[in-house]
C-alpha cells in the first residue's frame, strides 16, 4: 500500500510542475505586476519592483527562481499586501478547509439519506418529489441560491420571528469579532455550507439512488429477503454497504472540484478563505499569490484523486493495489 501511495505521489510531481509553470506563465503574460506601483508618485518604485521580480529576464528564468524559493518554503511576497504569501495561504486554507469538511460531511449525510429513501420508494410520490428537487438543485447557480438563502432564511425569517439579528449568519464565520467553535460559528456555517453543497447533494443523491436501486434488485438481496432478514438490516448492512462503493469515488473526486464552488460561496458570505483570496488577488493582478494559489489548488485536487483511489481500494478488496 505504501508503495502505491508513494508512486501516486511521485506521479503528481510533474503534474504540479506543469500546472505551476502554466499558471506562472499565464499570470506573467496577462498581468502587469507593476500596475499598482505605477500609481505611486515615487519614480523609482517601478524600477525597484522590476528588479525584485526579475521582470526583465525570460519567464522560464523567473519561474526557475520561483520554484527554487518555493522549495525553501518561500512563496514570495504579496504585491497587494506586502505579506508573505505562505502566511496568507495558510490562513485562507484553514478557513476553506473548515467549509469543505463541514460541507462534505453534511452533503454526504443528506445525499445518502435522500438517495436511500428515494430508492426504497422508487416510482412513488416521494421519489418523484425528491427527483424534482434534485434536478432543481443541479440546475440552480450557487450564487443565486446563496442570495436567495440569505434573503429568505436570514433577512425574512428574522423579520417573521421578530429576532434582533438573523437566525443564520451570513457575514463571515462569526458575529462581530468572535472566534472558536461555538453555537454562533454553527449558525454562520449553515447558509454557506448549503450554498456550497446544493449542487453536489443533488448529484450525489441521484448517484446513491441509482446505485441503491441496482443493488436492491440484485439476486443476493432477494435471497436475503426470502430468508427473512429484517428490512432495516437488509437495507443498511447488505444493500447500502455495496451501494456506497461508486458514490465514494465520486465524492472524493468532487471534493477537489468543490474548490471552484468556494470562490462563489466565500464571496457571497464574506468568508476570508481561498476563494476570496483568489478573487481579490485576481482583481489587482497579484501574481505571487495567484501562482501559489493555483499550485495549492492543484495539489489539493491531486490529493483528492489519490484519496479516491485509496478509498476505493479500501472498500473493494478486488481493486486493492498489490
Amino acid at each position, binding site marked *: 500500500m505504501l508503495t502505491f501511495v508513494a508512486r501516486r505521489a511521485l506521479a503528481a510531481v510533474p503534474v504540479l510542475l506543469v500546472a505551476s509553470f502554466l499558471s506562472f506563465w499565464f499570470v506573467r503574460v496577462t498581468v502587469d505586476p507593476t500596475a499598482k506601483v505605477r500609481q505611486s508618485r515615487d519614480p523609482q518604485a517601478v524600477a525597484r519592483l522590476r528588479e525584485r521580480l526579475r521582470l526583465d529576464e525570460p519567464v522560464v528564468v523567473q519561474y526557475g527562481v520561483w520554484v527554487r524559493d518555493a522549495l525553501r518554503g518561500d512563496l514570495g511576497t504579496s504585491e497587494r499586501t*506586502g505579506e508573505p504569501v505562505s502566511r496568507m495561504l495558510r490562513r485562507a486554507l484553514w478557513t476553506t478547509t473548515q467549509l469543505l469538511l463541514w460541507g462534505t460531511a453534511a452533503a454526504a449525510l443528506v445525499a445518502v439519506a435522500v438517495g436511500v429513501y428515494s430508492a426504497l420508494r422508487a416510482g412513488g410520490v416521494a421519489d418523484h418529489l425528491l427527483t424534482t428537487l434534485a434536478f432543481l438543485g443541479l440546475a440552480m447557480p450557487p450564487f443565486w441560491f446563496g442570495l436567495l438563502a440569505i434573503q429568505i432564511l436570514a433577512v425574512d425569517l428574522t423579520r417573521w420571528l421578530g429576532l434582533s439579528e438573523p437566525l443564520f449568519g451570513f457575514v463571515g464565520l462569526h458575529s462581530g469579532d468572535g472566534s472558536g467553535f461555538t453555537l454562533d460559528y454553527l449558525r454562520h456555517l449553515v447558509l454557506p455550507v448549503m450554498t456550497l453543497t446544493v449542487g453536489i447533494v443533488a448529484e450525489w443523491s441521484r448517484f446513491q439512488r441509482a446505485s441503491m436501486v441496482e443493488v436492491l434488485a440484485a439476486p443476493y438481496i432477494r435471497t436475503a429477503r426470502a430468508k427473512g432478514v429484517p428490512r432495516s438490516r437488509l437495507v443498511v448492512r447488505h444493500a447500502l454497504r455495496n451501494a456506497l462503493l461508486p458514490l465514494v469515488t465520486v465524492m472524493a473526486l468532487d471534493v477537489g472540484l468543490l474548490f471552484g464552488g468556494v470562490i462563489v460561496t466565500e464571496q457571497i458570505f464574506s468568508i476570508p478563505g481561498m476563494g476570496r483570496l483568489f478573487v481579490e488577488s485576481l482583481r489587482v493582478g497579484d501574481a505571487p499569490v495567484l501562482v501559489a494559489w493555483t499550485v495549492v489548488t492543484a495539489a489539493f485536487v491531486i490529493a483528492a484523486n489519490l484519496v479516491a483511489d485509496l478509498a476505493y481500494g479500501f472498500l473493494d478488496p478486488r481493486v486493492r493495489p498489490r
Partner: protein
Amino acid sequence: MRRWTTMVTGALVCALALGACSSSGEGGNGAGGPSGPGPTRKAAGTLVLGAEQEPDCADWIGSCAGSAWGLWTIQVHTIPRVFDYRKQAGVWTEVPSPLLAGAPEVSERDGKQVVTYRLNPAARWSDGTPITSADFRFTWRAVVDGEDIYDKTGYDLIESVDDSDPRTVVVTFRERYASWRGLFAAYGVLPRHLLEGKDRAEEMADGYEWSGGPWIARWRKGESVTLTPNPRWWGPPPKLAKVVFKFLASSAAEFKAFESRTVKAIYPQPQLEVVGKVTRRDPQARRFVTTETGNVEALWVNNDRFPFDDVRVRQAFAYAVDREAIVRRLFGRLGVTEPVHSFNPPIQSRYAAPAFERYRADPRRVEELMRAAGFRRDGDGPWRKDGRVAEVVLTTTTGNKRRELTLQILQEQLRRAGFRARIGNLPPADLFGEHLPNGDFQVALYAQVVTTLDPGLCVVFCAKNIPGPDNDHSGQNFTRTRVPEADPFLERVDVEADEQERIAASKRADELLAEAMVSLPLDPLPNIGLWDRRIEGPVADNPVLGMFWNVHEWRCRGGRC
C-alpha cells in the same frame, strides 16, 4: 421515530434562535474596555459596522496611503493628526485637533515660511509616552527619506523641524508652501520611540497595537477590525465598549447585512444598484445623501490625441454632452440633479468658479465649432476632416456598472452630435497604472478624490506635470493639458499665503481651464450613509475623514446595539 426527529429539530431551532437573541444582547452587558480619564459614563455596547473593502496593509505613508477604507476603519482612529475637519458657517474648515493646544501660527523668519505647532500637554501614545516634537521630526524624515512613499509633496519643501522643545514643533520651509495644512494631517504623526531604526512598512503592514487616537485597533485579516478604547486617550472617551468593522465582500451582501441589522451602519459607494436600495423605505433606518464631497467625477480628455488636439473640437465635445441628463439618470432618485462646474470639488467650493456652467447641450454650437475646426459631415454621418473620422474611444474601469451606464448614455449623445463613439473599458490597474500615465487613451471617465480642504489643481493641469523625463515620468497631468495662461494661476494657488489672493487665482484658473475645455467635470459622486436609528450621536458625513471618524462619540440607545 418521527416524534423524536421533530423534537431534535425543534431543539436545534430553539438553540439557534436563542443564540441569535443572546448574541444580540452582547452589547448590552456593559462590559467594556477601560474608559478614558475623567468622570464619565462607562463605555457600553458593541457596535458592528459594515466595511466595503479591507485595506491591503496599514502602512499609511507608503504602499497603503490613500486607502479610503484603511483611513476610515483604522487610521483615523489611531493616528494623531494636527487638524480635524468641521463645517463652520456653511464651509468645511480645518480646526485644530485635540493633539494641539491651539491653532498653529504661521510666520516668516529670514524670508522663510515657519509654522509653529504647540502640542497639547496631555497628548500621549497608548503606552503612556508623551507625543512630542520628536515624533513630528521623525515623521518628516520617514516621509522624505523613505522608499515607496506615496506622496512626498510638501514634506520635501521642509528645511527643518525643530524639536528642541518637546511641546513645540517649529517647521521651517525652504520655500513658501500654501498647502501646509495638509502636512501631519493626512499622514498624521508616527511614534518615533516605536518605529525608529525599524522597517516601518513591515512594522505597520499587518496593523499595529499602539495608538495616539481614541481607539486601539486590532485587525483580523479578512474578517474584521475591532476598536477598543485607548486608556491613554486624552480627549472625550469613547462611549462604546467596542466597535467592530466587518468586511463585506459585495454590495449585495452589504445591503442584506444592513437590512437584517447584522451590521448597524454602512457607507456604500454610490453604485447603480445602491441608489435603488438607498431610496427603499426602512422606518428603522436613518440616512444621509450629500454632494458636499471631495469627489469630482469627470470626463478626462487627452488633449494630445486627434481630434481633441484642437480646442474647438474639445468645446464641441462639451456642447455635445448633456451632463444634466446623465446626472439625473444616475442620481436623480437621490435628489442629485446638477452637474459640477469646476474641477475643485464641492468641499473646496470657495476656491471654485462655476466656469463649466457654459457647457450645456447645444447641437447648434457643436455644428459651428466643428465646422470652424475644418470638419464636415454628410447627413447623419460622423464628422470628418482630411479623411479622418472624429472617433472617440470612451474608457472607464471595468466592473463599475454606474460608469458603464454613463458611457452608454454618452455614446448615444455623441453619436447624435456626429461623433463616432465606442467604448473600450479597462481593469483599474491597467487604466491608472499604464494607459493614463502613458497617454494611451482618448476620453476616460473616473473620479478625482481629494482628502484635504486645500485646493491644488496644478498637479493635474500644469504643463510641467505632464509625465515625461523632466519629472521622472511621475507627473499626474495625464490629460496632457497645456494652457500656458492658466499655469501661473495654478502655481500661485499652491504657494499664495493670502487667502483672498489664493481664491482669486483659483477662480481665474478655473475660467481659463473651462475656456480651453481641457476636460469636462460631470458629477459630484455623492456620499451615502445608512445607520440604524438606535445609534445615537452626531452621525453625519465628514468628506475628508469619512462617516465613522467620530465613532467615539456614538452610543447605542440604552446601551444595546
